[in-house]
C-alpha cells in the first residue's frame, strides 16, 4: 500500500493514539504510537500509514484478502471497527481518536 499523503497544515487533522496489544507489539517495538491524519481519515488510511512506518509484515498481519484479518480486532474509540464499516470506518468526528489494535489467538470453540 502506498503511504497516506501527509496532511496539509491548513486542513483539519485528527491525532490518533494507537495502542498495540499482543504479538503486534513485538513487531512494531512499542505499545503506543501517535499518528496525525486528515480529519476525514478512515481506518484504512491509518493502516496504510502504519504499514508505511512498519513495513509489509505489519500489513500482512492485519489484512487478508483486502479486509481485516480474522484474528485482528480493532477498536475505534472503544467500538469494534467491524460494526462501523471496517476499513472505511471514520476515525473521529473531532480532533482526537483512540485506536486499539488487538491481535487475538484463534477463537475457542468446538470440541
Amino acid at each position, binding site marked *: 500500500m502506498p503511504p497516506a499523503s501527509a496532511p496539509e497544515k491548513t486542513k483539519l487533522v485528527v491525532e490518533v493514539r494507537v495502542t498495540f496489544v*499482543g504479538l503486534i507489539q513485538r513487531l512494531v517495538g512499542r505499545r503506543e504510537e501517535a499518528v496525525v491524519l486528515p480529519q476525514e481519515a478512515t481506518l484504512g488510511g491509518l493502516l496504510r500509514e502504519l504499514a508505511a512506518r512498519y513495513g509489509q509484515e505489519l500489513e500482512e498481519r492485519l489484512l487478508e484478502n483486502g479486509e481485516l484479518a480474522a484474528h485482528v480486532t480493532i477498536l475505534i474509540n472503544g467500538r469494534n471497527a467491524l460494526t462501523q464499516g471496517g476499513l472505511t470506518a471514520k476515525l473521529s468526528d473531532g480532533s482526537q481518536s483512540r485506536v486499539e489494535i488487538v491481535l487475538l489467538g*484463534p477463537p*475457542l470453540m468446538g470440541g
Partner: protein
Amino acid sequence: MTDRQLAAGIWEDVWIPTACDMCYNVCTVRVHRVNGVAVKIEGIPEAPPNYGKVCAKGNAGLMNLYNPHRITSPLLRTNSQKGIGVDPKWKEISWDEAMDLLVEKLRLARSKDPRGLVAATFDRCSYFSLRAFMAAYGSPNVTNTSAGFFCGNGVHPVAYTITGSNDVHPDLKLCNYLLLFGSSHGFVAQQNAMGLAREMAEARIRGMKLVVIDPVCTYAASKADEWIPIRPGTDTAFALSLMNVLVNELGLYDVPYLKKYTNSTYLVRPDGHYLRDPKDGRPLVWDARNGRAGALDGVEPTDAALEGSFQLEGVKAAPAFQLFKEHLRSYLPERASEITTIPAETIRRVARDLVEAARLGSTIHVEGHDLPFRPAAACWYRGISAHKHGMLNGMSVAQINLLIGAVDVPGGLINSTAAGPNWRPQEGPDGLLVPGNPFTYHHASPIPPRKVKQPETLELVELFPVSTYARTMLWLGVLYGEKFGLNYGPQVFIQCRTNMMAASGDPEVMAEALKRVPFMVSFADQHDETTEFADLLLPDTHALERLVPVVFNPYVHYNNAPLPDDEWCFNFQQPVVKPMGQARYWMEVLTEVADRLGIIGDFYTAFNATAHLEDGYRLDPSQKYTWEDICDRWFKSYCGEEHGLEYFRGHGYCKLGKRTAEQSYPRVFHKGRIPLYLEHFIGAGEDVRKFTQEHNIPWDTSDYIPLTEWRPCPAQKESPAEYDLFVVNQKVPFLTLTFTSENPWLVDLAHHNAKVFPVGMNAATGRRKGIVAGDEIEIETPSGKKVRAIARLTEGLHPECLAVPAILGRWVTSNDRARGQGVHFNSLLEYTVDRLDTLSAALDACVKVRVRRVRASGQKEAAIAPYRSP
C-alpha cells in the same frame, strides 16, 4: 427458618441459582444449600437451555465438589523425571511461592518470545478471559482442547460452509424424518444435552421418524425407528449413493432451491474452475430462456440451467449440477452396498422415504413469512468426522440436505449456533455464503479459504485454509515444529480442565510432547493423567465455588443450539459454597498474574475486544478492577443496566427475547449461496500444494476436490488381512465430557451398566472366533498396540466391529473403582500427521485390530491388568 427446622439444628435452608459445569453445556440449575452444605442440584423449569432437566452427570456434581481427594493447596513437582506413571513427588507450597514461581517463568518466557506460551482449556465459561490473557501476553497458541475429540474436528467447517454458523442441527420442532449419521444428537451425549433430549422426545412423540446409521446400536439407535448398521468409514458411499437414487433414479430433488440458493447453476470449465465473466471475474451461469451465458446476478435463478453442456467462445462448460449428477452415477446402490454392507434396497428405500418426507414444493407460514417447508434432514457428528477424509464425509451428508432443499428452512437442517441476534449470513466472494457476524465476520470460517502462509502457530493452522481450527496438530507442532518452519518452541504450558492425555490421541505421543515443555502449570481440582506432567499444580475451584458470568454468549460466541422459537439467554455460575482448602478460580489467578507481569492494561483492552463490551461498560486500561467489577460490567453490557451482578445473584439467568423466524430460518433472507460444488477447494489445494512443496513439507492435498467422493481410511487400505475387525468408539451419556472418573456415583452407574466396561463384539463374530461373553480378549493393532478387555457379545453391533465405549481405562484417578476399568480407546490410535484429515485436521479414529482370547470366561485369574498402570 421454621421452629421445627431450628429445633432440628437447621439454621440455613436456601436454593441458589447457578449453572452446572459437569460438561460444556452448562445447564441452568439451582442448588439446595443446608447449613452451608450443598445437598441437591436440580433444574429450573422455566430456565433455558435445559428447562428444568438435569442429566445424571449434573445430578452427580456434588460428588466432585466434596471429593475428599481434591487438590486443596499449591503443589510443586520435585521429581525432574516425567512420564506416564512417574510420580511427580509433589511438595506443598504456599500461594505466594507458587505465584512468584509462575510469574518468574512467564516473565522469562515472554522476554524470549511470547509465542512460547501455550494454553489449553475446555472450561467454556473462561474462554473469553483466557483469550484476552493470551492476547495481552502476545501468544497465539491458545486452544480449548488438544485434539478435537468430541466433535472430531470435521463438523464445524462443513457447518460454516452450508449455513455460515458453527454448527447445524435438525429442526426438531418440525422435522418429520431424520437421518443421523454417527451422531447422538438429542440423546444427551451431545450439545445442549438436556434441552435437545427434551426436544427429541417431543419430536418422537409427535411422530418424527428417526433412522440411525451407525456401526453401533448406540443410545440414539436403540431408541430409533430403524438402526442401519454400517461398516465404519463408509458413510460417504452411503450418502452419495442415496443422492444418486434421488437424482438419477427417482429424479426427485428441489430444483428451485438448488437454482436459487446453491452454486449448482455456475458454469464449470474442463479444468474444474468456474467459467468467469472476463469483465469482473464473477461466475457465469447459462441463461436457458435466452440461450446465452449471463452474469450470476443478471439471470433469474428460474432461468438458469441446472443441466446441459455449452460452448462459449471455444470453451466447453457445464453447470456444476450437471457434473454433480454425472459424478453420482458411479455410486450405484449395488456398489455402495459392497462398500458399506448396507443392502442396496435399503439405500433405495431410505432415499425414497426421505424425499417423500421432505414434501418438495411445500411452504409454511412463519411469523408473517411464507417459507419453504422441508420436514426432513440428515445430520452427522463425530462418528463420520473423525476420519482421514472427515470433511469430505461431512460435506457428503450435508449435500443430502441441499438436494432436498432443507438447509436453513423450517423442518430441515438448520444453523444452531448463530452467534446471536446480531448474526446474519450474507453474500461473499463468488456469491457464496459467508458468516455475517459483525463482531467476528469470517472468524474461523473456511469460506472463503484463508491464504496459506508460513506457519506461526504451533497448531499450524496456516496450512489448513478450509478448516475452522487445527488443534489436533498442536502437539505434533510441539514435537516437529521445525519441520514446518517454526522458529520457536513451547516454553510454558498453562492447562486447565482439559485432560488431553486421556482425551486426545495416543498418550505415548502426548507424553513425549508434554515432556518437551520446559515448564507446565496445571489448574485442577483433582489429579488426572495430564496433571501428572505438571511442574506446578494449583488448586482450582469447583463450579459451585466460583463466579463466572456469561456462561454461553449468544452475541459473539456460540449458543446452546437454540431451536426455533427458543429464548436467547445468559446464565452464570456463582459461589454456592466456600472454596475447599486454598482453591482459587484459575482466571482470577491469571488476572493477578497479568497485573504482576505489567500487562493488566492490555488484558483489559483485549477483554474489551473479545467480550465486545458496550459503551459505558468497557474496562479502562488505566484502572484496576476486581473480578466482581468485571463481571458486573459484563452482565450489564449484554443484558442492560438493570441486569448486573446483583440481579444475577438472585435470578441466575436472564432471558432476552425469542429467536425470530429470520434468525432460525435465514436461508431465504440472504443472498449468499451454498456451494454444492466445492470449486474453492481447488484453489485452496493448489495454494497448500505450492507452499508445502516449496518448503519441502510432505503434505497430502488429494482431498481438495470439488466433488466429494468416498475414500477408504488408511486402516481399511493398509491393514493386513488378519486384522479383520474395526474398533469403534461410542459416547456414553453419563460418561461424556469432563469430570467422570473421579465421581463415585457415575462410576457406580457404569458398574451397574453391562455395556460400559466390557468391549462389545457381535454375537455371530464371537461364535466364529470361539469367543463367549466374559472371555478376556487381547486386542492388537497392526502397529503392535495392545489392550486387554472382557468381551460382551451383542446383536447391536456391526459384525466387523468391536465397540469400545467412552474414554475409559483411566490410569490416574483417586477412584479405585474407575482405575484401569474398561479400555482406553485413544491408546489404539495412530497420532501422526499422515492420519490427519488435511482439510479439517480431524484425527482418524479408524483402526483395525485382531483379537485373541487370553482367558476363558469364568476361569480364575488375578484381576485384569489395566493397559497402563503407574
